């Protein structure tokens, strides 16, 4: 897109609710913004399976093992779908992988933490996926149509994951006092990262992702929606949310909470989380070990082309 006039027409189009397809002309700024957004989402789906992968062999029953394996397969599938969307915007998949492994691009904060018990598996599948689906549902209205369409399938599958997670949590809550304590301890560990997950509130007047309708809801709105639905569901099980400042203000209709630790968020997503380097190290090793598969599959095709 060459002229300012056509860029202006483009932004008027998206701000008015118009959609953009992969081969439509688009200004470089918009292309860069949507690529960064989708690439980060794809990275998160790919890195997000690592904490859960550790629990496949430790799942308590065969059915749980099948369900967990299936969830992990879904998440890797989401990464594939999203890397396809990102590739069409002009960045080769190999480059996205190289940047992820080099720590140049990011993935969601919640995937930088270690897991300690089966309780974590339940809380991750229930609440981390719930926090994610709140933002993903809003992305079904994204101005970038290929992303919005992909999100429909992803949201449907995430809703299954939430059921799986809630079922794990309910089973533990109906169990022994040790099992119940396991859930409470997991909730204590994950609450901070969950509250940071949607990011600090942004100014809607300057948040370009919001102005261009790449995303349709602001960070604070997403966090409020998450709290509205899930805090009552946590409380009804007799669990305690580890934030003494958390309360619903009936006058404003908003949830009040202790300010999340934004320094921790910034530090974690730039590769300084407790499990960041271990997870990236695993990915690097895995990438090297699977090189022969890519060579075997892409080799002849590359030679023909």
């Amino acid at each position: 897109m060459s002229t300012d006039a056509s860029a202006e027409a483009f932004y008027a189009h998206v701000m008015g609710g118009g959609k953009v397809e992969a081969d439509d002309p688009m200004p470089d700024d918009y292309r860069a913004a949507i690529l960064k957004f989708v690439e980060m989402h794809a990275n998160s789906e790919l890195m997000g399976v690592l904490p859960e992968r550790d629990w496949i062999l430790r799942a308590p029953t065969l059915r749980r093992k099948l369900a967990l394996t299936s969830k992990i397969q879904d998440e890797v599938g989401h990464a594939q779908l999203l890397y396809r969307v990102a590739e069409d915007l002009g960045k080769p998949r190999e480059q996205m992988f190289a940047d992820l492994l080099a720590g140049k691009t990011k993935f969601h904060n919640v995937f930088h933490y270690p897991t300690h018990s089966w309780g974590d598996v339940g809380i991750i599948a229930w609440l981390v996926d719930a926090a994610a689906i709140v933002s993903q549902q809003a992305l079904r209205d994204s101005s970038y149509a290929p992303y919005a369409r992909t999100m429909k399938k992803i949201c449907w599958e995430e809703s299954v994951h939430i059921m799986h997670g809630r079922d794990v949590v309910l089973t533990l809550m109906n169990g022994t006092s040790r099992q119940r304590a396991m859930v409470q301890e997991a909730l204590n560990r994950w609450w901070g990262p969950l509250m940071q997950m949607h990011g600090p509130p942004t100014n809607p007047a300057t948040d370009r992702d919001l102005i261009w309708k790449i995303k349709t809801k602001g960070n604070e709105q997403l966090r409020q929606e998450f709290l509205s639905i899930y805090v009552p569901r946590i409380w009804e099980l007799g669990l305690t949310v580890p934030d003494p400042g958390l309360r619903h203000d009936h006058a404003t209709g908003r949830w009040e909470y202790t300010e999340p630790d934004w320094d921790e968020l910034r530090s974690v997503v730039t590769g300084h989380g407790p499990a960041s380097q271990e997870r990236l190290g695993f990915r690097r090793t895995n990438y090297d070990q699977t090189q022969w598969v890519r060579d075997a599959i892409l080799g002849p095709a590359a030679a023909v082309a």
Partner: protein
Amino acid sequence: MMHSGNVRAPDLELATHYAREFYSRRQESHRLWIVPREAITELDDPDLLKPPFDRSFKRPGGYLIKHKLEAAKARAAEES
């Protein structure tokens, strides 16, 4: 994306005109993809598409939480 239907035409150019007349005459389509029938690969093996195993854990309905939720709520009320 959805399958709209098929047309009979001697070549791709005419097939494209027919497809446009049949499937976008009321502006109901954003794009049309016209593909010769022989270019379609079909998979219809039920062993692959509908394997005879219990895969209910892949669907929301595969988790019956009603009674578990009631039990957990009752226990929470008891202990508070």
